[in-house]
């Protein structure tokens, strides 16, 4: 009988569990530890325009995931307007439409961006070089002279772009540059010259983030495709400096207009922004994600169901504690998984109240059950009677605790009553058959297991890990399977079988 399939399954579970967890950590930036703080920017864009008594269509470019930032949530406020989000390879857009509008209009768009240094921009294939409209004379000579000058002094696309920017905007600005600038904006000119020289480049709009700033506008930046690194390099069109500043959020990267309004005049968009810190887990909870199939997670459920799952996902931890204590230590418990359910109740009641409540209920229950055994009832009827007894005890304790002003006593109701009834029944039988010593051993073992399971399940780190990484469930499964295959000694057997090893010694 080969154990190979078994180890294969265990290995597969471990592998899938670890990969899934690491994937969630890397892809969704869920930290391994709870309580990590993450910086979040709240940015609001306000679009103002005057509508001209007719249909209006407003297109606003929207930011996407990019290096340094991730989109968490986004909202719009626009009374009476129809709204649609659109996405293509050039970027995302929001489109507001209305059949008839007049007067001054205001549309709001707000987005939460999570600062995440590890975030990477989605892979972009370089666009083809747009067809270059030829310059008219005398601009054509000026343009080609500028290009040749910069070309000679550069080694690759990036340095070529830098030289070109310096020639047009920097101190080296010459006559040619000044001539061309009469025709075009500096950044548009630079992109056009780059394209003319066969370098893929585009003009992008970015927002410099500063806490508490209002009425900001987008600034123009230049991206040049670096053939060797296969990625876009960002240049400041004013200084020729390469690289993206930490506080620069790229708003539009497709080379399109940021704002387009049809049916309106005087349109403009302005931005205000705020930053704040929030726990990473909360940041993750608001996570905005398009790939809902891949992002198979509890967090896509409504909040109420999430809270339920938070508890359900802890049960395997309790089961692991039980398996560990029974298989490796050899602790005797009354009812295999009863301690897990008691531990779940402890989570609601807190440990001390829970322990006191549990002991009181079981002790009183045992006394009453003792009387019931004189009545010689059938088992089902007897256990049912014990259930009613347990409910009565819990009610009385709750009322007493309330009267005495002990609000902690009210949480006794969280105990699973049917489980308690069975515990009392089992302990009572055990008492009759094996005596009070066994009741103490098994009851104590159950309580010890429950307390350890509670400590494990109530640990903030464990709660965080089980709730946020579903892959951990597979890892737990693998561990439990492995423990189920353990044929070695239990810890308590080292004590039990001690007398045998003793007489090995020469007497």
């Amino acid at each position, binding site marked *: 009988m080969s154990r190979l399939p078994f180890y294969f399954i265990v290995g597969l579970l471990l592998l899938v569990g670890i990969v899934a967890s690491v994937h969630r950590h890397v892809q969704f930036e869920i930290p391994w530890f709870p309580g990590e703080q993450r910086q979040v920017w709240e940015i609001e864009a306000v679009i103002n325009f005057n509508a001209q008594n007719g249909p209006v269509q407003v297109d606003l470019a929207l930011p996407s995931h990019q290096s340094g930032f991730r989109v968490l949530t986004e909202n719009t406020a626009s009374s009476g307007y129809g709204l649609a989000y659109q996405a293509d390879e050039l970027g995302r857009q929001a489109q507001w439409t209305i059949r008839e509008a007049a007067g001054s209009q205001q549309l709001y768009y707000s987005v939460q961006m999570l600062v995440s240094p590890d975030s990477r921009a989605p892979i972009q294939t370089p666009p083809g070089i747009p067809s270059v409209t030829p310059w008219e004379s005398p601009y054509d000579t000026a343009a080609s002279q500028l290009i040749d000058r910069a070309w000679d002094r550069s080694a690759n696309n990036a340095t070529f772009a830098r030289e070109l920017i310096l020639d047009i905007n920097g101190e080296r600005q010459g006559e040619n540059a000044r001539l061309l600038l009469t025709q075009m904006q500096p950044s548009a000119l630079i992109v056009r010259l780059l394209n003319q020289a066969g370098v893929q480049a585009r003009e992008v709009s970015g927002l410099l983030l500063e806490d508490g700033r209002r009425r900001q506008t987008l600034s123009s930046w230049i991206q040049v495709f670096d053939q060797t690194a296969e990625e876009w390099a960002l240049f400041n069109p004013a200084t020729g400096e390469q690289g993206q500043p930490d506080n620069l959020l790229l708003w539009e990267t497709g080379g399109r207009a940021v704002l387009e309004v049809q049916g309106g005049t005087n349109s403009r968009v302005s931005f205000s922004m705020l930053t704040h810190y929030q726990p990473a887990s909360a940041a993750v909870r608001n996570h905005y994600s398009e790939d809902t199939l891949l992002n198979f997670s509890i967090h896509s459920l409504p909040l109420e169901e999430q809270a339920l799952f938070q508890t359900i996902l802890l049960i395997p931890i309790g089961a692991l504690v039980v398996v560990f204590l029974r298989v490796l230590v050899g602790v005797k418990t009354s009812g295999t998984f009863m301690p897990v359910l008691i531990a779940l109740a402890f989570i609601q009641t807190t440990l001390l109240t829970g322990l006191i409540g549990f002991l009181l209920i079981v002790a009183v229950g045992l006394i009453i059950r003792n009387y019931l055994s004189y009545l010689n009832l*059938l088992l089902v009827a007897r256990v049912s009677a014990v259930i009613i007894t347990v409910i009565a005890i819990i009610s009385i304790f709750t009322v007493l605790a309330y009267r005495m002003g002990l609000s902690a006593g009210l949480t006794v109701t969280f105990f699973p009553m049917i489980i308690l009834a069975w515990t009392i029944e089992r302990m009572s039988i055990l008492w009759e058959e094996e005596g009070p010593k066994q009741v103490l051993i098994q009851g104590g073992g159950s309580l010890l297991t429950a307390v350890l399971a509670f400590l494990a399940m109530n640990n903030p780190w464990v709660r965080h890990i089980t709730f946020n990484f579903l892959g951990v469930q597979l890892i737990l499964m693998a561990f439990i399977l492995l423990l189920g295959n353990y044929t070695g000694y*239990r810890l308590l057997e080292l004590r039990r079988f001690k*007398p045998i090893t003793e007489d090995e010694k020469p007497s």
Partner: protein
Amino acid sequence: MSWLKNWTWPTRLRDKGIVGMNRRNIRYIGRYNARRLYPLVDDKLKTKLLAQQYGITTPELIGTVTTQFGVKHMSEMLIGHHGFVVKPAKGSGGKGILVIEKVENGLFYKPSGASLTMEDIERHVSNLLSGLYSLGGSPDVAVIETLINFDESLLEYTYEGVPDIRVIVFKGYPVMAMMRLSTAASDGKANLHQGAVGVGLNIATGAALRGVQFDRPCYSHPDTGHDLASLVVPQWETLLHLAAGCYEMTGLGYLGTDMVLDRKHGPMLLELNARPGLAIQMTNGEGLRRRLDLIERQPDNVPVAKRVAFAQHHFARKSELTDTPDTPSATA
């Protein structure tokens, strides 16, 4: 560090060949005992009928009571029997067993001397049928057997209760054996953890190897004071054959057989256990592992007689009780 005295190292247990719970459950019970065979041993009536079929001696069956209606006709069944035992077929751990030693003037006397009327017995059987003593409270069947007359040679070693002999049978080979002697501490019951004395038996001869009470060595019976060293189970070979035959009977590879010695009929099978405990290792002062490993290497389909001979040859041991006469004997 005094509490460490009570603990040992796993390596030392392994050297001794001790089998732990986990190993027993996975390697032996899980591998050799098919689940579907369990009802054969968990129901004493089934075991008994099966044993009769296979010619294995068991206490004689007087009759069974299966319905509450049948309780009323029980007195007819008991006519002419001077001693009998009422057992629940699905009981465990000796619960619900009623022993009647003699019947006089319509009164039934228990071994303790207490007398019962016919109504008392009927009520006991009625409770038994409704599942008072069975596992999980399921409806049960009462099995009424003739009383066992214990072999007198063993009576000196026991206090009140029944001295029974447990033989572990692995793949049909008797592997290890012990005798359980009830004591005052165990309240006449033969349960080791309640204080009965366990005596390891030499598989070759049926002679005592060592005695253990509460897991500590013991050299004489704590109540009768009788020296354990002289204990030899009579008709040992018959007993081994009987135990080994239970393998063919049940098909269970790892089996605990509980036997008693009757004055007239010799060794008898009392009950079978598909999950025999590990305390037998304590009473023998030896682990089961080496013996089980040796048996696992033996071929299948060996006849009973050969298996018994093999076990007697390979598992023979010297008694620790007689070899060390100098040691003080009253340590229990």
